[in-house]
């Protein structure tokens, strides 16, 4: 990749175009996820308004899916919140990585914080210089926010118009989760953490309150206590 040209506005800078195209493509693809969130959320008993509020305000996919899934199964607010916040914690690590790369005052950083998620961080850190990192972050952030919320709205309207069980839409969540988690399995430690998390969940389901097995599955991350063979690096790919 070439260095960007600093004195051109970013939309005129030809060296940035491939990166911008990649950011927009990814954002459109995530809109599909937003659609499945919308469908699944109303299928799990949320209203269209609540579903859209989750995507507009929470804006971190895995946490939204998790909260709706636990509440839909009959879990308490506490267990739904706990599981969702465990999944939101990694955005804090992304924030650390992004604060080294983003310029601007407090107001701009507070706005950037809402957009600091898997995809924006991954697209930004993949760029070769500071300027294109910032362009990639903001383009992905704004486009993804738009696609995620439009996808959610269309999904929620679709989900409330049909009977979810007839179309197997209750399976849309776990299928989406599988698609979300599969790319992580290229890392052997992630496979181990996943196996432990999955087994803990199934073993504890019969005798703990609904939603608690999701909280307990976090013990799978203790795999990370062991030092890796190669140098540790921050994982941002999702």
């Amino acid at each position, binding site marked *: 990749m070439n260095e960007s040209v600093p004195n051109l506005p970013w939309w005129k800078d030809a060296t940035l175009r491939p990166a911008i195209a990649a950011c927009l493509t990814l954002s459109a*693809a995530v809109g599909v996820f937003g659609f499945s969130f919308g469908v699944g959320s109303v299928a799990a008993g*949320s209203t269209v308004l609540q*579903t859209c*509020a*989750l995507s507009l305000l929470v804006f*971190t996919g*895995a946490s939204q899916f998790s*909260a709706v*899934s636990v509440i839909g199964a009959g879990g308490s*607010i506490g267990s739904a*919140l706990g599981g969702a*916040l*465990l*999944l*939101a*914690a*990694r955005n*804090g690590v992304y*924030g*650390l990585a*992004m*604060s080294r790369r983003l310029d601007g005052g407090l107001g701009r*950083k507070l706005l950037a*914080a*809402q957009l*600091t998620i898997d995809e924006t961080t991954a697209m930004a850190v993949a760029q070769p210089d500071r300027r294109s990192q910032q362009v990639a972050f903001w383009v992905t952030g704004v486009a993804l926010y738009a696609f995620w919320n439009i996808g959610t709205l269309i999904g929620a309207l679709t989900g409330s118009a049909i009977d979810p069980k007839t179309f*197997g*839409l*209750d*399976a*849309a969540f*776990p*299928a*989406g989760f599988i*698609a979300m*988690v599969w790319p992580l*399995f290229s*890392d052997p*430690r*992630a*496979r181990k*953490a*996943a196996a432990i*998390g*999955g087994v803990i*969940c*199934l073993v504890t*389901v019969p005798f*703990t309150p*609904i939603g608690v*097995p*999701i909280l307990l*599955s*976090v013990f*799978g*991350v203790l*795999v*990370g*206590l062991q030092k*890796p063979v190669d140098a540790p690096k921050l994982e941002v790919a999702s």
Partner: protein
Amino acid sequence: MTWTLIILLTLGAYAFKVTGLVFLGGRSLPPIFERCLALIPAAVVTALVMKDTFTNGQELVLDARALGIAVAGIAAWRKAPLIVVIVLGAVVTALVRQI
């Protein structure tokens, strides 16, 4: 879903984002901590797959969803696009229910 949960989750999720980006700034966490945080999605999302496929409340069940999710898993393994994975999972589950 309740509005209480939506508000608490909004505040909590934003708190994590803002802590990393604004309050802690460019500092880095101990590597062992970063390694464990990076593994949360693998552990927790896999648990969500198990819960949404094999349970009904506090009961372990084996029903149409198992086959649907197995097919979705194969599609994900074959690197099928996201929409294909989700549609296959839903359609296979719906078809098995018809039988």
